[in-house]
């Protein structure tokens, strides 16, 4: 790396405004719905009013005859199935045979305005044959009528075992079993999904979309529209929030494209807020059972973990989600023997998928409340039991995850000290409580959505005679700050200011690949690709500058827009002069860089989910104020520490941490995606309850820098991990305050009241349904775990 010492860094490590900030706050940012093209049509989608039904007939003749209606599409116009994962190609842009949830798309209209499009939807006659609906995990397993998909309501069942867990439990001094439930919830981005499509006379299709994954949209459009990818251009527009909710392929993107092709006119679709709730792909409801053996001193001997996921109507990312509910338990605690069994069921609800923390907040909740209960039984405090089991830096977990940098203990120490957790928890005033939890998350999935040997991230850097630097990359900023990361890293390596950098991002015609803004991968992977590209440019510039300054190229430093001799201050030329000299010598100065994560998957089937080039770690202490008369829970203060590796921009990291705390509070205390008579209960911003600024507590954020050896400048992820410890810490704090266990998220006032009235002082599920999991794949353990 060009620079390694923190004190040499000019841009990296500084809290600076991100490049898109002023555009966003002043209204200059152009979101997909802001795009207005000449002769543009407006499209609307007709959606199923039934949770489960066969489509007998769709008659659009009345709609087609209406003045102003330019095209109507039905399922037969888009027969090719697609899905984000190659193993789950089970969606149609418009359903042709069956609908699987209220809100499933059935037909689409393009018209000269939205009023006409709406009226045309009402003129489409659909004849349905209603089928019995399946609205819960239990109903899906009971399978009363026709299954939702031909192969049954069990979408995916997995079982893995690392070491003999039964033996591990038998040899334990103490075992405990807990059953907990985590209700589903949704992302609630401020910006609704929107897409604009244009089909040119040259036979080329352009789609602008508010998407986190333009590359995957590009691939899916090629498949469904039967167009070569070379004739499709996908441009991701700035996302007004994503949180995982815009990382799938959506019907409206395909429909807008097809309508543009059919009409020859540009077409826009902006989803209503209600439709966003149906597009969903949010947090899976998960029922979990965890059984763990402990030695008297609190050390874990073995763990068995079961999860039942309520997947909704389609596959989406569900296979990955299922594995994720079992993958990261071992990344915080050294578990010598581990068994995971997971099953995802289809239900007649909008499909679940990845939401911030993808599949891991639910098991993290289960694990962290389970550990607190065991600590009580063993007479240990919540910190001590975790300390006995902490995963160590530069180790390998029993399921073959490679842990490198690890600031978990430092995070723990920090929040425990700052909140005075141990001193205060036993002496809290009435109704007040403190809770603690820790967690870990990936810095990017080690494998792509589809198997391939190509890089996950690529960056091109081109310098201009005037000293400007163009940076091109497929990454899309979803508010997390990826634009800043890209600009800051290139500015750092080339010694120019952020204002000298021109970014071109997320345009499949212009920019090289980045796989997308998901799995907390962008800083790590784009960052490494950007360093590689910028260093190549720097080397060529250095050679030209060395000739002019009569020195060796490795004697040069790039800083403050100057290229100069490190040991002879004053002997320097400007960056622009350097570019001119280099360009005179060899023509255009441009280079690219790529990043491919190391192959880290363990030697067993299913090992593709979990490995990451690095893991972030978090710890949180939450204080709650409970009203025992009403059951209401308020959170006045949160202490959270996050091992970021290195903060490339500390204020952005703090923003991600605070945003995670906010989202966790909503999930823990109020948000629920629930259904009644087959329909989402309240698909609106008003009635789907999410916290406001008034509910936001004081948050004390600490950043721990463990300087990851493979991260760009040592950086790891911040976008998802900090959400994880907050939810169980709230549950543990409620127990500390009132002595009740709410083993079910969200923790509502009613549940608290019910628990206070129960002899068990608990509200939560009583057990898991009977399900015959496949016999587990017996995976070998890494050598360091043999015999333990």
């Amino acid at each position, binding site marked *: 790396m060009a620079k390694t010492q923190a004190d040499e860094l000019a841009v990296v490590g500084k809290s600076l405004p991100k490049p898109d900030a002023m555009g966003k706050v002043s209204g200059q940012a152009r979101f997909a719905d802001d795009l207005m093209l000449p002769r543009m049509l407006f499209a609307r989608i007709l*959606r199923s*009013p*039934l949770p489960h039904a066969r489509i007998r007939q769709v008659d659009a003749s009345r709609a087609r005859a209406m003045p102003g209606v330019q095209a109507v599409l039905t399922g037969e116009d888009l027969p090719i199935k697609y899905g984000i994962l190659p193993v789950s190609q089970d969606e149609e842009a418009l359903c042709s045979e069956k609908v699987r949830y*209220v809100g499933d798309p059935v037909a689409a209209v393009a018209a000269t305005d*939205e*009023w006409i499009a*709406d009226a045309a939807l009402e003129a489409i006659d659909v004849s349905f044959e209603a089928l019995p609906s399946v609205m819960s995990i239990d109903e899906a397993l009971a399978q009363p009528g026709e299954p939702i998909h031909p192969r049954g309501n069990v979408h995916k069942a997995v079982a893995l075992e690392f070491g003999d867990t039964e033996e591990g439990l038998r040899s334990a001094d103490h075992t405990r079993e807990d059953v907990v439930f985590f209700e589903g919830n949704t992302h609630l981005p401020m910006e*609704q999904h929107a897409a604009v499509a244009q089909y040119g006379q040259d036979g080329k299709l352009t789609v602008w979309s508010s998407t986190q994954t333009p590359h995957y949209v590009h691939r899916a459009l090629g498949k469904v529209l039967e167009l070569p990818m070379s004739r499709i251009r996908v441009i991701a527009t700035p996302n007004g929030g994503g949180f995982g909710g815009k990382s799938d392929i959506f019907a409206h993107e395909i429909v807008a494209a097809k309508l543009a092709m059919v009409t020859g006119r540009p077409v826009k679709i*902006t989803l*209503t807020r*209600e439709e966003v709730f149906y597009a969903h792909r949010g947090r899976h409801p998960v029922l979990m059972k965890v059984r763990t053996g402990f030695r008297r001193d609190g050390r874990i001997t073995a763990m068995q973990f079961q999860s039942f996921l309520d997947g909704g109507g389609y596959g989406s990312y569900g296979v990955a989600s299922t594995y994720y509910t079992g993958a990261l338990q071992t990344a915080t605690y050294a578990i010598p023997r581990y068994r995971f069994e997971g099953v995802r069921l289809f239900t007649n609800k909008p499909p679940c998928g990845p939401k911030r923390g993808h599949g891991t907040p639910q098991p993290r909740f289960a694990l962290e409340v389970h550990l607190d209960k065991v600590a009580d039984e063993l007479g240990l405090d919540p910190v001590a039991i975790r300390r006995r089991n902490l995963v160590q830096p530069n180790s390998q977990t029993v399921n073959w995850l490679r842990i490198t940098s690890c600031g978990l203990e430092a995070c723990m120490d920090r929040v425990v000290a700052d909140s005075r957790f141990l001193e205060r928890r036993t002496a809290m005033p009435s109704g007040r409580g403190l809770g603690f939890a820790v967690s870990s998350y990936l810095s990017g999935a080690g494998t792509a959505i589809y198997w391939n040997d190509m890089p996950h991230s690529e960056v091109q850097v081109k310098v201009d005679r005037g000293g400007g630097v163009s940076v091109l990359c497929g990454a899309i900023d979803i508010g997390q700050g990826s634009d800043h990361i890209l600009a800051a890293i290139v500015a750092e390596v080339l010694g120019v200011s952020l204002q000298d950098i021109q970014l071109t991002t997320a345009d499949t015609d212009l920019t090289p690949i980045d796989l997308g803004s998901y799995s907390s991968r962008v800083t790590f992977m784009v960052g490494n690709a950007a360093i590689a590209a910028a260093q190549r440019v720097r080397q060529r510039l250095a050679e030209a500058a060395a000739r002019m300054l009569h020195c060796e190229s490795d004697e040069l430093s790039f800083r403050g827009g100057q290229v100069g001799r490190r040991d002879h201050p004053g002997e320097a030329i400007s960056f622009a002069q350097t570019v001119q000299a280099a360009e005179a010598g060899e023509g255009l100065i441009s280079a690219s860089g790529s990043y491919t994560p190391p192959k880290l998957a363990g030697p067993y089937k299913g090992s593709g989910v979990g490995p990451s080039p690095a893991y972030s770690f978090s710890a949180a202490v939450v204080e709650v104020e409970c*009203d*025992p*008369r*009403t*059951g209401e829970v308020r959170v006045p203060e949160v202490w959270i520490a996050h091992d970021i590796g290195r903060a490339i921009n500390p204020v952005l990291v703090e923003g991600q941490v605070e945003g995670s705390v906010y989202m966790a509070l909503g999930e823990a205390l*109020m948000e629920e995606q629930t259904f009644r*008579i*087959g*329909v*989402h*209960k*309240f*698909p*609106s911003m*008003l*009635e789907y*309850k999410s*916290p*406001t*600024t*008034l*509910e936001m507590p004081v948050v004390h954020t600490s950043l721990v820098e463990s300087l990851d050896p493979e991260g760009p400048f040592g950086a790891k992820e911040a976008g998802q991990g900090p959400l994880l410890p907050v939810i169980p810490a709230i549950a543990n704090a409620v127990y500390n305050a009132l002595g009740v266990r709410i083993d079910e998220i969200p923790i*509502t*006032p*009613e549940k608290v*009241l*019910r628990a*206070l*009235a*129960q*002899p068990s002082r608990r509200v939560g599920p009583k057990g898991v349904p009977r399900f015959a999991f496949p016999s587990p794949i017996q995976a070998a353990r890494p050598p360091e775990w043999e015999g333990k």
Partner: protein
Amino acid sequence: MLRLPPLRYLRPTSVEAAAEAVAEHPGAMLIAGGTDLVPNLKRRQFDAPVLVSLRGIAGFDGIQGEPGRGMVIGAGATLDQVATHPALQTAYRALAQAAGFVSTPQIRHMGTIGGNLLVDPRCNYYNQSAAWRQAVGYCLKRDGDICLVARSSPRCWAVSSSDSAPVALALGAELTLRGAEGERRGAAADLYRDDGIVYTTKRADDVIVGIHLPAAPAMTSAYWKLRRRGSFDFPVLGAAVALDWADGMVRVARGALGAAGSRPVEVSHLLTPLVGRRPDDELIAQVAEAAEKPARPLDNTDFSHYWRKRMTRVLIERALRDACGLDPLAGRLTAQTRSGQAA
């Protein structure tokens, strides 16, 4: 996005002209701030081919008087004006509290006190888009023939969700209405009907002109609102109380509950044990426990009706303690059921 249906928008400059415009156009509706009407119209919860705006009428938003001689509030006064008016911070404080608790600052700068008194009763089977309501088979209040929250009921159980309505009852307010056939004045309580659909006695062309608060130099009042969040949300329960004092003892006690039925529910008759007494912890708890009886929450708002029902006495106790100058949160009642009663 959701679009408003095509409609005519009229801007009269006098109350009389507004009333006449409504009388002339069948199906026309009055619009003031529009904060409740516009989103409901976008969801096609009702039809309004013509909207008659009250925003062009001068002198419609005045706030006059003081507690010693009574006050008149123009129906066009914004909720923010009501919440912050200095003369409304003592005897009539409950009204300022109620107005200040409505939704968000932006809404309070648009929404009017007259409009808040007339909030269309809410139900989470009704405040939904046309497509959503089609999916559940529609309900009595719009396009359907059954009440989805009480399927065997012949009537609609949409919930009165106004914060100011129970306060108007508790304060003994009177309203002046002016319609095409002239002006009349009556008790605020008489404005409301116990029905989720035809929820007022007001004619379509009646414009609420003024809210009259009776002289009350020695009154104290309080409004407590139950909702999920500290902002934004409609009430899932409201408790308004007003106590008139003489020689340190309660002379008159009035109260009403909001979001406890299809109209604001008067509970004054259940507060009479306070009259002639200096209320202490014990008496307030007893009275609050008895006063919860008329509340009939159903499962058609946020939170469970199980919890809302149990919270009623707690909220009344807190409002009464507030009006008595006692620490509102230090009461004795709890929503908690005794061991074994919970399911």
